């Protein structure tokens, strides 16, 4: 799995891309796993308005991830 972070979240975590070798799980479980990486991670990943995309398509917390998936976490978009 490859996990990406964008915008303010990327800046807060200080990480843009994180390769992960974990067993297949749901997005919710991945978020819990990542939250354990430290206090920063816990608070930022707990944000209500955090969005997640799997393989570049927005999806919800119940999505079941596979080994080859690209997962991205990011704040609400502000382009245009």
């Amino acid at each position, binding site marked *: 799995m490859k996990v990406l972070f*964008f915008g303010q979240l990327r800046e807060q975590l200080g990480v843009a891309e994180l390769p992960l070798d974990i067993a297949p799980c749901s997005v919710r479980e991945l978020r819990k796993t990542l939250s354990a990486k430290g206090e920063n991670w816990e608070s930022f990943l707990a944000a209500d308005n955090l969005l997640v995309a799997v393989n570049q398509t927005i999806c919800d917390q119940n999505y079941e991830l596979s080994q080859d998936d690209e997962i991205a976490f990011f*704040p609400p978009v502000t382009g245009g």
Partner: protein
Amino acid sequence: MSKNIPLISINIQKNDFDHGLEYTQLKEHSDQHGAIVTFTGLVRDMNLGEQVTGLFLEHYPGMTEKVLQKLAAEAAQKWSLGAITIIHRIGQLDVNQQIVFVGVTATHRGEAFDACQFLMDFLKTQAPFWKKEQRGSSAHWLDKRLSDEFAAKKWKER
């Protein structure tokens, strides 16, 4: 109503774009299409009462193009369009510089206005861009605007 497949052009780029050139290209595909509507978004010099000195635009390469292609395809389903052009810049931009261009041609003006506004409303709420605004010596990631959410939601009530 026949739904011809419009000519769709989507570009995410660091460089500025030439509005006149984009318009000319839309016009060249408009023999049957009497209406051209363009929207251009610029970096404003003020936001929330503060002086803005610049803007940094980040995006999610790959996903951005996917989302915009999907939006263009949805617009082509909803309206009978001749051409759709979407350009969005990324990287560092100065005040009054062009950020985004959406241009649409259609047979009648109502369709051209609706399609252009639909594309902008959903680009604002679905395309993975993030703006960091420079105000004097500090920089702030922008929050989403509720009015953008409302604008996008209105299309579902139609």
